[in-house]
Structure formats: structure tokens, C-alpha cells
């Protein structure tokens, strides 16, 4: 069976969704299908472009393909009979981020027309799908709330669990993943200026924009934290990332209202590390419970500093939370073999 995985592409932005698409293709090939990836470039600024972007996807023709598994807007609009959708997220600026006042779509008539067009295209696409999967309860809930569609939650597995075996806890907090203002690594740097224990912070990952890197560097300099905060910015190898996770005292991940667990969270749990996160981090909170599998703080520097200090001082607590995190994650039993089976059903 020839399976085309379809995803949207923002050139040179590489995060969890891109990793997932690559791994999906690899695992489809491993478990008996013939799979290939189609990435359709997507540009959403200015807002008027969104209409053209949908048109671009609707004019493409797919030949020599038996099945389509589509992941993101607007690429999932590409015409094909009975697509399988595995929705990682909708175009959130037209939905929940708009409601939260974090959208670049204006509230005037033009903005409304664009949002309506997106919703109509989405609804038509969802209605004709073979299967409608979502990657998390958060995504499923939004799909229900905004579009009225029921979906089946199919959480993505970890791609290389063997790398995250865990190791003795060192004296640093590790914050991995893409770097941008929405992931709020800057809050961790600010927290470090208030931390009383001698623990350090390592931030590692690819900045979305050069400005995101500059902001962090400037913040580290302003608080004079050069000897306590390491910035390892760029696209790192999986081994390097696993090394940071395995040797950490705890991991930290503070996205604003993340849709799913996030790979960063799954990796920390696999390695048996407690996770420091924030009460508004969305899907992360399905795995991380306060003082059970990690520390759930308020999204401010003071609250984070307190949590870091507690984990640094109370090594028994951090060990217990880390063990719980691993057990809770493993009990979900998420594997690629089973995921592929469900996607091709």
C-alpha cells in the first residue's frame, strides 16, 4: 500500500510536528506500507495569505497514492478521497488563540471572513475523512467545541525511547525543545536570578528566529548569569539531547497551552526525571501532576524559582517524582507498531 503522509512546511522551522511526520514515514515503512512525505510550504502572514494558502492546497492533484495520512492545516486540505486525518493542531490563530487574544487575525470584517473561510474548509475536510484522529484530548476538545466533530485521541509515541535510559541526577535543570517566546524559556532564566540553591540551568534547542536567541543571551547577561546558565542553541543531535536529559536533576518545559504532552515531556518521563511545568501549559498537565510526577508552577519567575529550589534541596522528593513520571508514562504503553496499525485501519 502506498501511503502519502501530508504535512505543512514552514521552511527551516523544525519542531515536534516535523519529527513526528518523519518518524511516521519511517514506521509506516517498517510495518509493511510504502510511505513517503509530502510537505506543502505554508506562510500565514499577512492574514490575507491564508485564503491563498488554502487555494494552493486545494489545486494540487495526488496520483499514484493509495492512502493519505494528513497532519496539519492547510496541507490536510489537499484533495483526496477519504483521507485519514491525524490532526496535531488546527490553525489555532483562527480558533482558540483568537479567543485568547493571541491571534494576528483582526476582529474586523476582514478577519472574520478569513476565520469563517478556514472553519468552512476545515469542516468540509473533516466531514469527508476516513478517520479523524487527534494527538491529544486538548486537540480533540477544540475540534468538538469549534467544529462540532468527534475524534479519536491517538497519542504519538516516543521515537527513540532507548536513548532516554536515565542516569544519576546532576546539578542542573534541563530545558529542551524549540526556543521561542511562547515556550517561555525566558521565565526560567529570570527564575535563575532568584534561585537560592547552587543549581544550574541548561537551555538547548533551535531558536525559531535569530531574535529568540538574542533575547535569551541578553537576559543571561543582564542578570549576570553567564556561569550558571548554559545556552546550547541550534539543532542538536538526538544523542546530545538525550545526554542532557539523562544527566539532569529535573527537566523544565513551560509552553503556553500546549496541545499534547510534548516530546520534551515524554523524554523527561522516559528518563525518570521530574518535570517542572506551568499551570497554563495545556496538554503537558495530562502527564505532569503537581508533587506527583513533577512540579506545576504559576507562570512566573518566583514560583519557578521556588520549585527549582525544592527539587535541588530535597533529592528524595525529586527522585520519587522522577520514578512516578517514568511509571505513569510507561503505563500508557504507546508504541509505533500499534499506532501504525490504527492509522491504516
Amino acid at each position, binding site marked *: 500500500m*502506498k501511503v*502519502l503522509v501530508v504535512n505543512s*512546511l*514552514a*521552511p*527551516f*522551522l523544525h519542531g515536534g510536528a516535523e519529527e513526528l511526520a518523519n518518524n511516521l514515514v519511517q514506521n509506516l515503512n517498517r510495518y509493511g506500507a*510504502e510511505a*513517503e512525505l*509530502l*510537505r*506543502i*510550504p505554508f*506562510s500565514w*502572514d499577512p492574514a490575507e*495569505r491564508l485564503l*491563498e*494558502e488554502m*487555494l*494552493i*492546497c486545494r*489545486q*494540487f*492533484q*495526488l*496520483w*499514484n*497514492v493509495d492512502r493519505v495520512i494528513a497532519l496539519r492545516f492547510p496541507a490536510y486540505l489537499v484533495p483526496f478521497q477519504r483521507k485519514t486525518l491525524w490532526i496535531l493542531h488546527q490553525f489555532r490563530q483562527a480558533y482558540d488563540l483568537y479567543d485568547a487574544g493571541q491571534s494576528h487575525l483582526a476582529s474586523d470584517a476582514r478577519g472574520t471572513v478569513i476565520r469563517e473561510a478556514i472553519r468552512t474548509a476545515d469542516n468540509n475536510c473533516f466531514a469527508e475523512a476516513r478517520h479523524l484522529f487527534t494527538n491529544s484530548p486538548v486537540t480533540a476538545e477544540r475540534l468538538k467545541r469549534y467544529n462540532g466533530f468527534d475524534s479519536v485521541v491517538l497519542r504519538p509515541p516516543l521515537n527513540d525511547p532507548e536513548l532516554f535510559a536515565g542516569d544519576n541526577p546532576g546539578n542542573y535543570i534541563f530545558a529542551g525543545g524549540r526556543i521561542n517566546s511562547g515556550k517561555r524559556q525566558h521565565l526560567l532564566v529570570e527564575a535563575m536570578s532568584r534561585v537560592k540553591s547552587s543549581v544550574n540551568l541548561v537551555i538547548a534547542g533551535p531558536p525559531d528566529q535569530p531574535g529568540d536567541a538574542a533575547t535569551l543571551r541578553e537576559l543571561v547577561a543582564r542578570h549576570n548569569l553567564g556561569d550558571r546558565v548554559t545556552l546550547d542553541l541550534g539543532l542538536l543531535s538526538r544523542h546530545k539531547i538525550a545526554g542532557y536529559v539523562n544527566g539532569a536533576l529535573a527537566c523544565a518545559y513551560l509552553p503556553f497551552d500546549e496541545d499534547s504532552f510534548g516530546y520534551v515531556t515524554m523524554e523527561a518521563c522516559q528518563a525518570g526525571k521530574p518535570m517542572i511545568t506551568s499551570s497554563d501549559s495545556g496538554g503537558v498537565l495530562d502527564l505532569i501532576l503537581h508533587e506527583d510526577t513533577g512540579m506545576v508552577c504559576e507562570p512566573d519567575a518566583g514560583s519557578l524559582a521556588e520549585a527549582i529550589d525544592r527539587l535541588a534541596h530535597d533529592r528524595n522528593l525529586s527522585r520519587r517524582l522522577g520514578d512516578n513520571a517514568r511509571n505513569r508514562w510507561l503505563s500508557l504503553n504507546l508504541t509505533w507498531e500499534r499506532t501504525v496499525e490504527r492509522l491504516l485501519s
Partner: protein
Amino acid sequence: MRVAICSSFVPFIHGGGRFIVEWLATKLRESGHQVEAVYLPFVEINEQILPQFLSYRLMDLSQNVDRLITIRAPAHLIPHPNKKVWFIHHIRLFYDLWESPYRKFPDDERHRGLRRQIMEADQTALREARQVFTNSQVVSRRLQTYNKIESEVLYPPLLEPERFHCREYGDEVVYLSRVEHHKRQHLLIEAFRYVKTPVKLRLCGVSSNSSYVLQLRLQITRHQLLGRVSFENRWVSEEEKSELLAGALCSAYLPQDEDSYGYPSLESSSAEKAVLTTTDSGGVTELVKDRYNGRVVEPEPKALASAIDELYENRELARQMGQAARLRLTELNINWDHVLTRLLS
């Protein structure tokens, strides 16, 4: 530099247009550039050509991408302020194959209109490019004739020419290529009815045409050539290809009016083996000069047979032409340093 390489594809079909993209991406990364290789779908169905053109034309890659390099049509329609086109062929039915039996649709007002629109779209997009390159003089001439566009020939190199080497000048002519009617393996088998020396022939390659494969087998049996001609309809690994060429007397590559010289002739030249080809092979004759780095003979069995006998009887000649074949690659500047310099300047 952040470079996007865009090309078109039909999912799950692996033609030569993919090698040029993959190899260019590899070489750009090796020299420290960031690369996105993007394949977009395109099918040549008359009613769908212009709608698909629209998708390419509307695409916005201006953000995040410093340089756009386009390969297979209609990727050159994508706008970018810093675009270089490496043009490998037109949508030929509407260009040079219009007056050929390959065109199955009528020469009526509707199709002439479509032809005009395709040509205008191509012309407009090609004029916007900072520079237009082609893979052969044949394609450059067509751009000049049909689109009035000046272009520079930029010959595509092999990814790793150093894999090929010469061990000896043995007793075997090798034809390592896809087995298709227009590659004319049948012509070479026919020639072996007329060779007078004990020279052998080895044909190896995959095919999309099982009846042609059967036809070749029957031809070999019918003319009692089983002891002389071996034919294996299968994939040949890079290692095996290199081994077969290392021991060969010379290679053969006789496509009918090919656009470019074809990777088999480059592989043979890298292994210091003369290339046997025919006067009507198109782009191959840009690389092969008669009696310098190979033989260019009439597409007649007897002419081919006598060229083969001559090389078998005069190994010194086979060696001289083989060494010239390697030298010819340098003379034509067929190397990645040159390609990168031209595409990035």
C-alpha cells in the same frame, strides 16, 4: 545561507529528477548551508495543468529562505526575489513533442490555447529568475527556441564519482541503466549477432515495462546468444555497479534522443571506461566525442558490432579512450564545486 530546493514529483516514482535534488542538498549541507528540499506534486493531465500551475505560482517562500533553487517543472513558477532555475526539461508534450506521435490530443484551438498559456507562464517565471541554468545544450536550445530565454549549461555531477575506479579492460561490454524501450537494449542485443570477436555483453537494470523485458529475453534466446549476452532484470547496488564497471572493456548507453548525458555515461567516465553511444542519442553526444572518449556510431547493429570488435581487439585503444573519458569530466567542469559556485553566486 538558507537554501530551498524545490522540484516537482509524482509520489513513489523515483526518476533522475530526484537524484539531482538529493545530491545538491547533500553537497550544500556539506558546505555549511541550511537546506530544505521540497517536492511538490505535479501530474500532466491537460485539464489539471493550469490549476496546478496556480498552486506553484501562489506559493510564498520569501520568508526565511535566502535563495530558491528550482529543478523540475513547474517548480520555476514559484516566485522568489532570489531565484535560480536549474531547468531539466519542459512539459515536453507542449514544446518539442507537440509535433510528435507522443501527443495523443488534437491540435485544436483549445489545446493551442493551453499551449500558449503554458508557454507564457514559463516565460514570465523564467524571466524573473536571477539566472537560468540547464542540464544540457539540448535543453538550453529549447529554452532559446521556444521561450527566448538565455541559459547556461550546468552539467549535473554524480554524488560520489570517487566510488568508481578502473581495474582492467576486460572482455565485457556493460549496459547499466533502466531497461526501457527508449534505452534500446534491443539494439545492442541485435548488434551481438554481428560481432566477430568473443566479446561479451552484460545488461543490468530495473524496468517498468515487463513486456519489453520479455521481448529482450526472447531476442537473446532466438539468436542463441545465451552464452554471450547476460541479462539481469534487477536493481544494481552502487558497490556492484562500481565493480562491474571496474572490470569492463567499455560501457554502452544508447538512449533515443535523451535530453541530457545521463548518469550511466558519467559513471562509466568516472571508471575510465569509453562510452559506446549512437548519433541519435541526444545529450549523450555532448559528453562523448567519437574516437576521443568513446564511440558515437550510427544506430545500426552492424556499426555497433564493428565498434565493439575494434575495442576488443585493441585494448590499448580502449584504455586511451577510457582515460580520456575521465579527463572529459574535468574539461566540461562536471564537479560540485563548480555547480555550487554558479548556483550560489
